[in-house]
């Protein structure tokens, strides 16, 4: 439980990428927590807890989670997550980030997973291991995604 508490940001970040409002975010957060809890007895400690967590959390977000049918749009998550907290506020960077983030959100579930692991500073070996593809293909795919994002941002 302590480890879960410590690494909860990983789950939050995945939820932010795969959901559009705070209700869905909480829903997915809960589902991932349940899955992690259920899978924990099988955690052998031969990998880092966070690495193991990436796998379970992404599996839940992409495959196991059934999107809630609730259509009521509550608070827009973006407005919260991109709230400017820094004193060095740069509107250009802020706008650019928001555009970039929105572009990432338009990607497919699988592409999002790759981008997420990339943003988490994982190397291609780890990305490949989490998704179950080869390292070379992970690299090729990531380059294609970057290309795709570039096209979205500069049509």
């Amino acid at each position, binding site marked *: *439980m*302590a480890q*879960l*508490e410590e690494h*909860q*940001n990983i789950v*939050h*970040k995945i939820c932010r990428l795969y959901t559009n409002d705070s209700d869905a975010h909480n*829903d997915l*957060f*809960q*589902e991932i*927590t*349940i*899955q992690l*809890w*259920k*899978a924990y007895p*099988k*955690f052998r400690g031969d990998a880092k807890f966070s690495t193991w967590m990436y*796998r*379970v959390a*992404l*599996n*839940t977000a992409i*495959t*196991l*989670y*059934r999107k809630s049918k609730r259509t009521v749009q509550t608070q827009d998550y973006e407005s*919260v*997550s991109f709230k400017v*907290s820094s004193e060095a506020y740069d509107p250009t*960077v802020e706008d*650019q*980030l928001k*555009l*970039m*983030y929105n572009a*990432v959100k338009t990607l*497919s*579930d*699988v*592409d999002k*997973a790759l981008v997420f692991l*990339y*943003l*988490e*500073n994982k190397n291609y070996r780890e990305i490949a*291991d*989490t*998704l*179950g*593809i080869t390292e070379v*293909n*992970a690299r*090729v795919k990531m380059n294609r995604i*970057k290309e795709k*994002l*570039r096209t979205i*941002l500069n049509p």
Partner: protein
Amino acid sequence: MDELEILKKEWQSREQEFPKLTSKEIYPMLLKKSSSMVKWIFYISIAEMILWTTLYFLVPESSKKFQEGMGLNAIFMWINIFNYGVVFVFVYLFYKNHQKIQVTNTVKELMANILRTRKTVHYFVYYNIGMAAILMFSVNLYYYFNKDKLYHILKSDEFYSAVPPETFITLNAIGGLIIIGFLILFYWVIYGLLLRRLKKNYKELKKIEV
């Protein structure tokens, strides 16, 4: 990609914006029910297997009388024994495949394992629908070639005495076709909905490897 690099930098630095839940807040979440797709697929698959297996027991009395009168009892008994054997094999395969589904698999493995488990159940259903269709067709054919016998039984039955044998065979065949058509539609809709996203993602992951 400059923008993605900027996002990467910001991504790490903005973690403090997320709500920090304590163990006390996380714990109640664990007690809530999971809405995992695997759980749903498991329940639906079990329900299907039970449904199809119990359907064999639900043959109406009138139909049994018919089979007996038409001399089909022995063959139906053999078909039933064969069916139970097939059900057993399917239940075993389903169990084995379901065991392989682990949330700690790689993303691709997990998807493949779920799809394989579902396929087992699909084949079970195809087998049943196919078997039902073949049986229906053969029985009606048999009735057709043994019209005299059929006519005799129909006449002795209060309920069916007013129905001419030809009409009986036609109605029987049409009824069977409607039921089979309905079943196919039902499966197509239910599983299409349940597995669409998973199939799409799996296809995409497989495409990366080509």
